[in-house]
């Protein structure tokens, strides 16, 4: 029964997120209805925790039930009022319906039913693993849940905890944004007690959010069948499911990464200037919130997004898809959103001397070839059960469908994936971070965080190949 606090605790953040998205969309709604709720949950939860963090370090609230709830009630109310005024002035416009598609054949419906049941069974097992089994992994009892418990007990953002023997632990994992521990602390405060199942249950929602965002992006931009395929493919990635079923932060950041990349790609794909601008603003919010997910969100994923956003604006300007004033306004919006999240968080890190690396400082690394790293990378990527055939197939399709991969708006996915993946390799091949590859820790997490982007790209390219060869019609047209 204590799990009932989960929907109660996430309701207001989700509604806040939904209202924020609706305000940004204004008279040009671009998202599908369910997609807007999923994105609302993702943005709202992270955004609400960010605001709570700001008010807390300003000394205005504590991490109590009242403190958390007050922020959420005020934010939801303000956004609600703004949305009400917006509707009053601008009216409400429905999103244009998607192009109609022929119904699935009976054979296809049976296949989809089986696939859905299979995915449902795995997700149920993952949910039960999260909520009925004790903590098991290091990062859970040393970082994510531990900090959540500290926040809950101390009712404040504590950067240290006593390790006994008059010693304290600081820095290291405390350098991570506190979003996830704050969510756990909020749920515990709501329930009045620390409960493992409740503290962990939100992770399955982030996993489902990643699946949902991939599905809806493909639904909007490609086809219904591609959307179902993409969701199935992501749901079949074993290591992604393991992470969705354990209270780690990598699926959480993967969902955020996909939201930002997907929205940016949607801006490039949109046909109307107003829709492009709306998607771009939404992508900006996604990029800004990425800063408050994990350290690598800021250090590893935001820079390529900045580059791709800049190139996208430039491309749209050159092609005449956006006016100069619109490009300038979008750029300012982008910088403004990043500043709203980035400046306070970076200032906080600087004041408290928190490192920027993935629980390890990046400064002080020396450069030299590291033995056995290439072998370990090859084994992890191609010869273990982590990814099924995701990365070999993706590589092959990037070559077979290079025009689609590199000369259409899908290049945003391609470029982001390649920049991040290839950008990490020198760190593993030439620095002391090589242990992260040899021990298959940091390297695997990097691929995990890219999994939704990789799956979506694979689906887009596969769909292109099948469509070009007109195979699809032969397979799935109802007789």
């Amino acid at each position, binding site marked *: 029964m204590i799990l009932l606090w989960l929907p109660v605790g996430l309701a207001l953040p989700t509604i806040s997120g939904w209202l924020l998205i609706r305000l940004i969309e204004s008279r040009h709604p671009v998202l599908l209805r369910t997609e807007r709720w999923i994105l609302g949950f993702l943005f709202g939860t992270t955004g609400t925790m960010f605001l709570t963090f700001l008010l807390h370090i300003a000394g205005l609230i504590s991490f109590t039930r009242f403190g958390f709830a007050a922020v959420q009630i005020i934010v939801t109310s303000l956004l609600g009022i703004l949305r009400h005024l917006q509707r009053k002035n601008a009216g409400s416009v429905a999103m244009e319906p998607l192009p109609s598609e022929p119904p699935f054949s009976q054979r296809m419906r049976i296949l989809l039913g089986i696939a859905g049941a299979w995915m449902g069974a795995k997700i149920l097992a993952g949910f*039960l693993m999260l909520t009925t*089994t004790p903590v098991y*992994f290091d*990062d859970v*009892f*040393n970082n994510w849940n*531990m900090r959540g418990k500290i926040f809950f007990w101390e009712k404040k953002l504590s950067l240290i905890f006593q390790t006994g023997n008059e010693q304290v632990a600081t820095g290291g994992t405390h350098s991570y944004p506190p979003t996830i521990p704050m969510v756990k602390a909020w749920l515990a405060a709501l329930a009045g007690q620390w409960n493992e199942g409740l503290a962990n249950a939100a992770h399955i929602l982030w996993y489902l959010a990643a699946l949902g965002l991939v599905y809806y992006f493909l639904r909007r931009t490609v086809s219904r069948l591609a959307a179902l395929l993409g969701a199935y493919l992501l749901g*079949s990635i074993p290591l992604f499911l393991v992470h969705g079923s*354990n209270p780690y932060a990598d699926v959480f950041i993967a969902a955020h990464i996909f939201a930002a990349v997907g929205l940016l790609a949607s801006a490039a794909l949109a046909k109307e200037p107003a829709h492009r601008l709306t998607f771009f603003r939404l992508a900006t919010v996604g990029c800004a919130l990425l800063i408050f997910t994990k350290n690598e969100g800021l250090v590893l994923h935001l820079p390529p997004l900045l580059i791709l956003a800049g190139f996208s604006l430039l491309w749209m300007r050159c092609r005449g898809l956006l006016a100069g004033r619109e490009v300038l306004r979008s750029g300012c919006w982008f910088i403004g959103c990043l500043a709203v999240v980035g400046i306070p968080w970076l200032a906080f890190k600087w004041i408290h001397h928190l490192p920027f690396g993935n629980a390890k400082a990046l400064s002080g690394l020396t450069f030299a070839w590291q033995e056995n790293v290439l072998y370990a990378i090859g084994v992890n990527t191609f010869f273990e*059960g982590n990814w099924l055939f995701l990365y070999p197939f993706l590589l092959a399709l990037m070559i077979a469908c290079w025009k689609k991969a590199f000369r259409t708006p899908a290049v945003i996915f391609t470029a982001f994936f390649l920049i991040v993946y290839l950008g990490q390799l020198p760190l593993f091949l030439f620095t002391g971070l090589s242990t992260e590859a040899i021990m298959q820790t940091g390297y695997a997490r990097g691929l995990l965080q890219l999994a939704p982007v990789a799956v979506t790209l694979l689906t887009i390219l596969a769909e292109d190949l099948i469509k070009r060869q007109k195979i699809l019609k032969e397979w799935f047209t109802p007789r």
Partner: protein
Amino acid sequence: MTERFSLLHAWNISFLSKHNYNDPVLIASSLLSLFLLATPAAEARDTFEWNFLDANIPGRIEITGWTKAEPTQAGLHIQTERAGHMTRATNFPHPVESVAITLGPGSSSEAVLLWHVRGSPEGDLVQLPFVIQGSSSREVIRLGVSHYPQWDPLADRLGFALSADSDITIRSIEFSRWNILEKATEAFRSFWIFDVFRPYSINFLWGPLLTFNPVSRDHLFLSVPPMGWSANRFLYLVIVLAGMICWAWWMMRKNTIASGTVGLDRHALAGRAALKRFLAVLAALWIFYDLRMGLEFLNYYRRDYVEFVAANPHTRTFRERGGFNDFADLVAPLVRDRDRYIFLSIMRWPYLGAIRYLTYPSIPTDPAQQDTGVDTWVVYRRTDMDVNDAGMLLVEGEPVAGPGDVLLDFEPGSFVYRIRNPLPSPAAP
């Protein structure tokens, strides 16, 4: 003869086994296994043995270092105060894939299998450590040696070494190999053996592995890295073969498609059909692999449910951590009114970090802290610690704290102890 040993460290053993003498046989077995239905375990195999019963000594054995090695009716009885080893020339009649050592009554000991690789310098012996548990009746130790790249299936010299103070009786040593059909069966069966959830599972999953004899299959996932070939090797091979077959089919078909169809490019038709078939193979392989890994994931939770969630709280275990979580649940209320307690366990990791989290805000410290007023000791799986009748806490029989009382007696070596009159905490400055 001076013999030099090169130690076969477990972590050096690549499960992408290289330089195996019968790679083509194993590859063929693997391909066959992918299409083979499981058959009952094939006991038939080629076997020969060195029999030591009835005081028999097979061949000429050279013994170095042992103080006593005597042929008896029950086998070769080795009782030695010093470390030593024995070897003999092998003259294997066929390649060997597994070694099974049958022992009679004896004590536990650390042992090492030794062998000489043909062509290597004389005296260079490869070592494979193993443990003799010791038994009052009979013990069989099976070693799946064929998996190790350093194994020579026709090694010309073999033996083993024992540590000092060993007392064992060797009844026989059996050498076995399996034929291609049996290997294929084993590969198929091992493909469906699931790993269990372990600390590394959050970073990587081994995935399906192939072994080619029942000994290696029994030991699958018991070592890190596991003794098996990644099944991905062969799935990629299937993909390549499917691609080649589809390409060959396309080449044949593009010239034979009926020319009666007006306006159609016969090359495109043939190419489309070939691609359709190839993509169907890829899709089938993906679904097949998803089924394999999905079942493994479901099995993770099935084990958790059976062994922990639905099990008796007094006897349940959680993965490889035994009853630790239930112990911690019972400890938490006992230390709730203490800001610190002393914690000692069989291993620092993962228990220290885990119990710190589980009992927070009460913090575990080390034994020196009893001088600062910490009065509670939480001990987990330390069979060298106990409390005597006088209420003194003992480590290896020596008192270290007390007198006090046992607040929780969870299992031998796992308890909570509180000192009756602790030292006062140092006054705050």
